[in-house]
């Protein structure tokens, strides 16, 4: 490494690492804050006590028996989901103070026991209570299961009346649906491969947290120096501009990487704590993600370079960086819910004209086993990074860097 580049790098790294508040804000907060958030959310959910009333308005014994059976099954299911609740069975229809009410109205048994009757059950949820929504969902699930048993019973009764032999399960399920996944070549995908693909989508979304910090470090390296009044004397020293730019870019990348991996770890811990399906990683996916992240940090720092040099002030630069961040967020959020490669040609061309998209495509094609395409997008990212570095270096203008203008 040329000695002057080492000099700039030495100073920049010291300067950035000693900026403890910024480091804490960008590294510590996501690394500790996100897992903490997941734990707090989990703890809060488990501590929220839901008041549930099973209201039996129909005095008929059959209704009471059905409601009692529902009550027992419902408690079993609620316990499986580790929800905190109080539940009572009552004939009092007053819903005040109740979050979830399962109401068996008058006439329930009459309709239930008739072959052509529809017995009604009301599940009422208190407005604006997510925990109550979850408890109500479980109630519906238990009721559906009981309903299915009743249907089977009715079919058996009907077949008995008709004097024919019928398998009620086949009668009720004339089509059996089996789900499977396959790869682009047509080969069947294993359940592990499905898990890895699902985890990869989360990794693609998590790229946002990797991309973000380098932008702000890059901007600070020029605009921060300008506003702290340290850049003007530096511009009169013998340091070549490309060395200065390269030194600042490299230091932003190094510190950006440290922070990015901290942020990424925080996001992953958050997903582990909150994503119920679990995450599946392979060594290959981890390596691809690390390489993509490294390139993405270099790419975003390079993209921020022209802004850092020409924005004029920290505030203007931060405004532009915010736009960049929003673009990054849109791309990585889109990647979570949409397969970018399946979009129309025009939409895809728009996405691919944004350099940040190629990080998603590197991971996407790797998961599909299309290594060459994955490598191609790595090269595209590298080419964009070099192009932005060249543009950034060409944009260095000492007059604009020292002048404060609107």
């Amino acid at each position, binding site marked *: 490494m*040329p*000695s*002057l580049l*080492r*000099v700039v790098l*030495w*100073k920049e790294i*010291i*300067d950035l690492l*000693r*900026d403890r508040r910024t480091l804490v804000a960008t590294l510590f907060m996501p690394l500790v804050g996100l897992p903490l958030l997941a734990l707090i959310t989990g703890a809060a959910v488990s501590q929220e006590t839901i008041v549930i009333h099973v209201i039996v308005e129909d005095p008929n014994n059959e209704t009471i028996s059905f409601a009692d059976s529902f009550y027992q099954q419902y408690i079993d299911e609620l316990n499986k989901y580790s929800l905190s609740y109080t539940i009572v069975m009552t004939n009092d229809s007053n819903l005040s103070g109740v979050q979830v009410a399962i109401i068996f109205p008058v006439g329930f048994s009459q309709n239930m026991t008739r072959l052509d009757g529809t017995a009604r059950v009301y599940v009422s949820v208190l407005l604006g209570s997510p925990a109550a929504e979850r408890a109500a969902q479980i109630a519906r699930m238990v009721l559906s299961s009981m309903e299915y048993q009743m249907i089977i019973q009715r079919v058996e009764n009907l077949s008995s009346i008709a004097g024919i032999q019928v398998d009620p399960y086949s009668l009720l399920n004339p089509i059996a649906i089996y789900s499977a996944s396959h790869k682009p070549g047509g080969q069947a995908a294993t359940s592990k491969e499905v898990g890895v693909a699902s985890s990869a989508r989360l990794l693609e979304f998590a790229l946002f947290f990797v991309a973000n910090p380098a932008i702000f470090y890059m901007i600070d390296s020029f605009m921060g120096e300008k506003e*702290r*009044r*340290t850049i*003007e*004397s530096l*511009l*009169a*020293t*013998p*340091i*070549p501009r490309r060395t200065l730019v390269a030194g600042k870019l490299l230091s932003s990348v190094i510190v950006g990487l440290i922070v990015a991996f901290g942020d990424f770890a925080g996001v992953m811990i958050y997903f582990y704590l909150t994503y119920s399906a679990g995450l599946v990683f392979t060594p290959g996916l981890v390596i691809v993600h690390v390489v993509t992240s490294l390139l993405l940090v270099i790419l975003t720092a390079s993209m921020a370079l022209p802004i850092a040099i020409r924005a004029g002030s920290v505030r203007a630069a931060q405004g532009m960086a915010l736009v960049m961040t929003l673009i990054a967020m849109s791309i990585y959020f889109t990647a979570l819910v949409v397969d970018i490669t399946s979009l129309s040609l025009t939409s895809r061309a728009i996405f691919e004209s944004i350099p940040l998209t190629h990080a998603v495509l590197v991971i996407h094609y790797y998961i599909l086993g299309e290594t060459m395409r994955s490598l191609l997008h790595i090269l595209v990212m590298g080419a964009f990074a070099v192009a932005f570095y060249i543009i950034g270096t060409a944009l260095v203008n*000492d*007059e604009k860097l*020292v*002048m404060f*203008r609107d």
Partner: protein
Amino acid sequence: MGEIIVEVRNLTKKIGKKPILHNINLTVERGSIHAVLGPNGAGKTTLLRTILGIYSYESGKVMVLGYKMPEQRSIVNKLISYLPEDAQPYERLTGYENLFYYALIYSGGIRETAEKMVELGIKLSNLGDAIYEKTGTYSKGMKRRLLLARTLMCKPKLAVLDEPTSGVDVVSSHKLRQILKEAVKNGTTILLSGHNILEIENIATHVSFINNGTIVAEGSTEQVKRSFSVANLEEAFLKAVGAT
């Protein structure tokens, strides 16, 4: 006249559409302390930045140490150093590290040469043990002394100092002037700007009065005083700008 270090001929400079410098002519001789004096907004900083090649210009000619500016700036920057008016040290670096960073740049990354420069810088700044503390803890006077030492430790052929004593107390100002005189003895030519004429009269050997972007008088301090038949530079300046 001695060897010419800075030669500015018919310089015109605009910022945006606004003309800032009009047909400026300026000559700085080797070994002199040449002060560009004028009120706030007269164009002093713009003139210095243009001489240094930080600013481009519309017309005229700027030569520094025989090199054309800004075209040959990369050569000139190795031979000169600059202290801007509102410069600050890197506050998260110690005074020593601030000196070392610039010393490494001026030495081309050669550690031994840089360490010698820093040795001189520490001596010139006279900050004692505070040199090993982060400069964020320094007073304004201490920062200015450190920056002046940083500017002069590389023994430049030309040091350009924009308002070197601005905002510092009387004692610090006196120390800074001592440092400048010492630097001249070591072969550095100094081009500085200021608006405190009485203070600068103590050290300047040559002056140029600038007002509204135009040089209104130039010469050795004695010549200028004689030409206006006055006892001090302040009176000369007032006469030069027609304020009396």
